[in-house]
């Protein structure tokens, strides 16, 4: 196992930011960590990266104890932080050259520019970069030492769909070269698509850890009926429909989770007709459950909140 975390605990004052968690990440895995803000994700990741020290517990990275040999670990990991407001008066290639110089071994800067589609903006000062370019630069900086493990913190935030897919293929390429990627993300679609396994964190604990497929299968056998309506009916009224397991109403969005879609659907349509709402159900459709649904069920919150 390339990362081993055992009984990790970290307090901030009276708050238990990380509450006795243990997990492992295998070599060559794309490992995802999800959780609402304040769940303890960032603290956990920063302890593994050696940026913070734990109150107790053990973290080993590539077989080395992070508290004992942070330097040799840092040579071989790449870290992307959020909000990279870095040295605004250097150009893209200068900042990559500077960071490359911090490592014993590094990739040619040229190749990293190519990989992250930054060749055209190589001479642009960091302060003049667009949000998406800055985001790609911060990923490029984390890959410049050809790391065994890349820790990417919401790497696709602020990227347009094309750039996002570009980055996904960079991440998948790394995996095909035997590298490990530790990903925190807000995008469920991204996690489902990229991650071999996903850990869901809430209140300092890991509340679920499995492949996206098994998470959905284990926590969510039902499917979802979704529609929009200007004045949603009460939850109780909808709960009386047959085979429903849960109702979520968020503004004008209504989600009805059901064990038996035909049964629930026909009852819903009948109910709408008797209440005179039939014409008001907009964008009515049935979908498979997603990681987002699992997340919502487990944490009671939507991840984008």
């Amino acid at each position: 196992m390339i990362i081993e975390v055992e009984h990790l605990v970290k307090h901030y004052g009276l708050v238990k930011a990380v509450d006795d968690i243990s997990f492992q990440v295998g070599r060559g895995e794309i490992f995802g960590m999800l959780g609402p803000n304040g769940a303890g994700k960032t603290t956990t990741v920063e302890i593994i990266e050696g940026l913070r020290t734990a109150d107790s517990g053990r973290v080993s990275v590539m077989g080395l104890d992070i508290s004992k040999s942070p330097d040799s670990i840092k040579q071989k990991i790449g870290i992307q932080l959020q909000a990279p407001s870095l040295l605004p008066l250097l150009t893209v290639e200068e900042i990559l050259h500077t960071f490359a110089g911090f490592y014993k071994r590094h990739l040619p800067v040229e190749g990293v520019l190519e990989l992250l589609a930054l060749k055209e903006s190589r001479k642009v000062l960091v302060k003049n970069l667009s949000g998406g370019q800055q985001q790609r630069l911060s990923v490029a900086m984390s890959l410049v030492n050809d790391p065994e493990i890349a820790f990417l913190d919401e790497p696709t935030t602020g990227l347009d769909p094309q750039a996002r897919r570009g980055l996904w293929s960079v991440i998948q390429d790394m995996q095909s070269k035997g590298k490990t990627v530790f990903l925190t993300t807000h995008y469920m679609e991204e996690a489902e698509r990229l991650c071999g396994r996903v850990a869901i964190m809430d209140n300092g604990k890991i509340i679920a850890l499995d492949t996206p497929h098994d998470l959905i299968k284990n926590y969510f056998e039902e499917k979802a009926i979704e529609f929009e309506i200007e004045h949603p009916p009460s939850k109780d009224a909808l709960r009386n429909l047959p085979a429903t397991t849960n109702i979520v109403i968020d503004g004008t969005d209504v989600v009805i989770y059901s064990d038996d879609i035909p049964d629930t659907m026909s009852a819903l349509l009948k109910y709408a007709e008797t209440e005179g709402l039939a014409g008001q159900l907009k964008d009515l459709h049935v979908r498979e459950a997603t990681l987002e649904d699992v997340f919502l069920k487990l944490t009671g919150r939507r991840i984008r909140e």
Partner: protein
Amino acid sequence: MSAFNRLLVADFKQFFRDRTAVFFTFAFPILFMVIFGFVFSGGDNVSYDIGLVNNDESQVGVAISQAVNQVTIFKVTEGELNDSLDMLRDGRFRAVVVIPADIQSKISQGEPADIAVYYDPSQTTSSQVILSVLRELINETNRQLTQAPVLLQLAGQSIQTRELSNIDYLVPGILAMSVLFLGLFGAVPLVQWREKQVLKRFGATPIHRSTIVSSQVAYRLALAVVQALIIILVAYFIFHVQVVGSWLVMLGLVVLGTLTFVSIGYVAVSRARTVEGAMPIIQLIQFPMLFLSGIFFPVDFIPGFMRPIVTAVPLTYLGDALRQTMVNATPLHSLAIDMAVLAGWLVVCMALAIRFFRWE
């Protein structure tokens, strides 16, 4: 290239792209020197407006009036008594000299004659200068009239091999001031990096904190040396101020001074969370130090109860050391004491900075 060199190169690139920083580092001290240099050098050829009322057209009266006219620092205007006194009251004259009508007849009768001088005692400095010049002039005239032989004569001997002018005094002060500024602000980039999470990002790489700090200090030292060189060259070419002492000692003093003030700067901002918070702290140290160090005026002007502060601030010693080395001015302390005090401040502040500087 090593991490240290990469950081140093990055620091210089950023510096030269920041026009404000370049201006304040290089142009400001020069501007300061040129302005003050011309203001002070104006003091070397002052002249005073003097009103002269000659009521005696005799040989003696004319001789005295000619003598007054020949004093180079006097600009003499002859006129009537009442008009001249009005001019004095209006501030257009600094003094009015009146030669009485009966001067020749009194002298020939062997009686002393009074030459009246009207002046404004509130103009302390100029009145004293004018009165002593006139006194000297009258004495000389007396001596010539009485044909008395010269028995005693004052021979002024400067202890300087060459005359020190105001600008000679000023240039080492400007040098000390620019070392102070460059040093005290030396920790600001690190505060900014901490605030903007650059230090956190560096912390995610194998680079050591000591490498980050030492590259910052090396960068400051290089700036300080270049800045000092520019100041010295400008002083030489515009004001003909020469370095009479050893260039090596000068370099050593600039380096030692920069290190000392950089370490003071680090201590000062060790707990500041933001650059906005750090600036006032630095200014709170910088301005009192600037005025209580005697780098721009002799410490004799500072009242006695403030002297202990003068004795404590390191800038006093840097200014003194630079002044005695650069223009051979009279030292306050020996060079060894100056350097020892600076080194003492350096060691203490470095220890404090290592202990208290906040990285996160």
